């Protein structure tokens, strides 16, 4: 792993990033370097700005100040190297289409304007559905998918983007244990293919099992780096404030690993 970091080989380089809604800062002066090929969790309490950070890195939100570079270039230049899995709750799952069609949307960026998805895209989408264990659900209407299945469809759509860096917003929320295993296995596979994976996560119990890097966030950035370095009692206290006693108590045996 690439723990010796300089700005050139960073997958993501965030400098002095401040984001505000109306006048309230949601992110304050974030400096974050994410090296290539890590599986990183963005962790913090509710309202810490985790999703906002993810969206700002991808250029979906205009920051009040600061800059973001992906593989040393602007987001626009790297748009085909970015894969994204948004929160499932953001879309209307009663939309009139099927699972296969949604997965194929992952190719729209590479297809560009006007071109319609064809045989090639369909083949890729079926392969991706197979990887997430949904091969038999290609023709299934969206409103007939369970929460876990919806999440798998979104993951398949991100996979088909064939990106170098993936951003995933709470992929484990509201899914069953089997789906959670499937998802984390695929994320680790991506990491092993030296892709970079950035995940908004909120379950401290699974943190050390699932991820190798972590960024602790609570409006300000508390710390980031390899889990073993960063996940200290003191940092958790800084991140979670008064509620940290409970968390550190549960977490301390794992941090010593």
């Amino acid at each position: 792993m690439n723990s010796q970091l300089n700005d050139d080989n960073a997958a993501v380089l965030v400098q002095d990033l401040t984001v505000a809604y109306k006048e309230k800062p949601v992110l304050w002066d974030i400096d974050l370097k994410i090296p290539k090929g890590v599986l990183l969790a963005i962790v913090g309490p509710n309202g810490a700005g985790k999703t906002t950070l993810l969206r700002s890195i991808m250029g979906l939100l205009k920051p009040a100040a600061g800059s973001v570079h992906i593989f040393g270039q602007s987001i626009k230049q790297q748009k085909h190297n970015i894969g994204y899995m948004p929160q499932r709750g953001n879309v209307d799952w009663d939309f009139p289409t099927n699972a296969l069609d949604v997965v194929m949307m992952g190719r729209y960026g590479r297809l560009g304007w006007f071109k319609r998805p064809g045989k090639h895209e369909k083949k890729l989408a079926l392969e991706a559905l197979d990887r997430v264990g949904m091969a038999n659900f290609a023709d299934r209407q969206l409103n007939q998918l369970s929460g876990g299945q919806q999440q798998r469809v979104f993951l398949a759509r991100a996979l088909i983007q064939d990106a170098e860096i993936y951003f995933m917003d709470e992929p484990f929320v509201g899914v069953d244990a089997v789906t959670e295993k499937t998802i984390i296995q695929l994320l680790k596979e991506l990491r092993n293919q030296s892709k970079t994976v950035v995940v908004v996560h909120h379950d401290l119990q699974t943190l050390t099992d699932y991820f190798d890097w972590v960024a602790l966030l609570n409006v300000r950035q508390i710390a980031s780096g390899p889990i073993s370095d960063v996940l200290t009692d003191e940092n958790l206290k800084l991140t979670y404030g008064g509620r940290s006693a409970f968390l550190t108590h549960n977490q301390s045996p794992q941090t010593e690993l």
Partner: protein
Amino acid sequence: MTEIISLNYTLIVVMIGAFILGITSGILSSFAVLRQQSLLGDVISHAALPGIAFAFLFFMTKHSLGLMIGAIISGWLGTFLVAMIVRYTTLTRDAAFGIVLSVFFGLGIVVLSYIQKLPSSEKAGLDSFLFGSASTILLSDIITMAIFASIIFIVIILFWKEFKLLSFDRHFMSSMGFPTERLDLMLTWLLVIGIVIGLQMVGVVLMSAMMIAPAAAARQWTSRLGVLVILAGFFGLISGGIGTLFSSYIPHLSTGPMIVISISVIMVFSLFFAPHRGVLWHWYKQREYQASIRANTMLVNMLLFSESATDPYHCHQLSALAAIGRGPAIKAMKELSNKGFVHNPKEDLWGLTPAGFNQAKRLQQSLDHDS
């Protein structure tokens, strides 16, 4: 003789206009409804009224192109104001809709009533934009409508994939580098144009129905976007046809409201009778489901009863079985008997058949497994 021909000619012109109106609003309503912007159509059509009135004052003519351009500008201005209110004030979207709709509509009415007092002979029929008046439609109006409609069709076909993704998941689309805001704007422009070409026929008050009903009806019958859009267009088209025919054969019925009533009938029928999504379908499925729960409970209860006796097929009195079950026992029994799971050797004596025994075992296992 000439009267009949001219009547038919008028009818044909109105009919073509109604077809164009129906198809365009059907197609556009699909996107409006899927993007949860059904009420935007209401805002745009009301906001178009002052544009029509001012355009008349400016050109002093009822020529449709000038009035349409006025309507498009003020209709678009209305949506722009909604966006500004949402962005820069603490008001919510529905409040912004309400404000823009009533202010623009009120302004339109004021200017219209001013125009009524003018000595111009052209002014007659301008108030038909309120409720629509198909009889004032001329061939030149039809041509203008057709040109605008073609633009809408072409843009939607060209940007089909983009509009689909925009309607489903704009954040994802944006992450791939598509300019979602500009696409949003484009779709809103199409909506404005589509509404404006229908105003002369249906009027500002009823036009919003055309931006909701065709898609709401079509959604009941299909779960594919392509089919939905075509079906909505088709529903719009036939309601245009039916509305025109009714109002031409029955005196004193206006075309616009008849078109709206036709599409509403199609929508209500679809809401009730469509398979899978219809109200009746749900009701029937619910009953079927409850009946099957009752029957399964009965089957498992009979198994429990039988296990105490040495013979699993031992028959029991219905009243004894009803005591531990819920609901009308005889109904559940008859259903089970139809499936061959129970038999009824003597009056009031019921017992499991071998098939029923196996079924009950299976149910029991699945219940144990779940708990």
